[in-house]
């Protein structure tokens, strides 16, 4: 039997949260929605494993976490991006609104974190989960979440502080492609 309508409604209701997390993990819209798609596929295929007393958002974020790890593992096996595709890949990134410089730096700083640090940081800061909830999603002890978040903060700050001067020198001698590669 396929998933009941009530379960599907819950999926629909949780989708904005799921998309936000996917976007923060995957950066560009298309790979983020690919990730959401594979989460929905897994959720619909394994709906019986969902305990309705639990928060479906946590369950879905946890599936997203695992699916994202699978993607990372798969990508690592693939060849390095061929140079002729670099522009294409960068163009797929979401256009940055507001203070694009700051946001680009933030995104770049996030990309420098280890995947473990990044997901803990995003779950606590952007998804606003408690350490206990993030621990449930990541299937690690809450203490581990606490230290990963802290280390991620420090690492991101170090990079941002260090990159301010670097970015300044880049802007002084404009090389259009350089800024995009970051």
């Amino acid at each position: 039997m396929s998933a009941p309508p009530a379960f599907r409604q819950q999926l629909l209701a949780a989708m904005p949260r799921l998309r936000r997390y996917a976007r923060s993990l995957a950066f560009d819209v298309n790979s983020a929605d690919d990730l959401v798609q594979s989460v929905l596929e897994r959720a619909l295929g394994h709906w019986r494993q969902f305990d309705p007393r639990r928060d479906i958002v946590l369950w879905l974020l946890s599936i997203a976490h695992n699916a994202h790890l699978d993607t990372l593992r798969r990508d690592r096996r693939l060849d390095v991006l061929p140079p002729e595709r670099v522009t294409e890949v960068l163009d797929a990134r979401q256009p940055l609104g507001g203070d694009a410089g700051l946001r680009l730096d933030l995104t770049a700083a996030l990309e420098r974190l280890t995947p473990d640090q990044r997901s803990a940081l995003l779950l606590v800061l952007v998804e606003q989960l408690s350490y206990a909830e993030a621990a449930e999603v990541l299937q690690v002890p809450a203490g581990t979440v606490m230290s990963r978040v802290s280390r991620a903060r420090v690492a991101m700050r170090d990079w941002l502080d260090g990159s301010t001067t670097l970015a300044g020198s880049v802007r002084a001698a404009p090389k259009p492609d350089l800024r995009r590669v970051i």
Partner: protein
Amino acid sequence: MSRPDDFTDTDLSAWLDGELDAERRAQVDAWLHDNLEAGARVRLWAADRDALRARWDPVLGEPLPAALVDQVWQVPALPRWAQAAAMAGLLVAGGVIGAAGMWQWQGQRPGSTLAAGTPAGWVQRAGLAHSVYVAEPLHAVEVKAAEEHLARWLTRRINIEVKLYDLRDEGFELVGGRLLPDAGGKSAQLMYENPQTHQRVTVYLRKPDADAPTAFRYVQQGELGMFYWVEAGAGCALVGALPKERLLALAQAIYKQLPSEQGANAPVR
């Protein structure tokens, strides 16, 4: 009890996330008061947190991509033989109904045609009313089929002409009908039963909302299949736990019997 200089970045980070207990939080509060450099660091972390939220919170307000909504409502494909049977049924339907130029096949995924991603509320209510009353062995209907005034009574109550469709050629006999509350009004439910299999189907009728889409649609929710359409002043949903092609045959039989001002002579919308 820790000495003030014991506070590490991990403590400060947990403090910022509201994860410390009251006693420890108070200690860090006091300590930060005297440690301006640490205070400045924590303020930068808070700014980073706010910037990260500002970066991704807008995603929450984005409309959901239709492909993802469709995926949520997608049901596993019918077995190949059933697909073939359904297609054959559709071709027949095309001959009968296409001539009237009114029905439009919309596929079985409501998300692809409705912005909300779900069938209209009244279709959901039709499904719910079906589930509630087909399970009733004794009080499945309010007024039995044998009573003369059933059609007149329902017609008067819901303000559209209710006809007692004859589905005997399809193996279903009228059990009776009932009046139901509907959003902002009333609706009628007619119940039919197959005397051999004791399967029941219901026909849900209501005066449609002004902007209701008129297309002929199918939606499957769990066991239940529903064909629904809006035609010249009447919203109609046929609900049953039957294979799609069986349900389609019943929908066609109903369509052929629509009252004249709602049926084939009705002006094309």
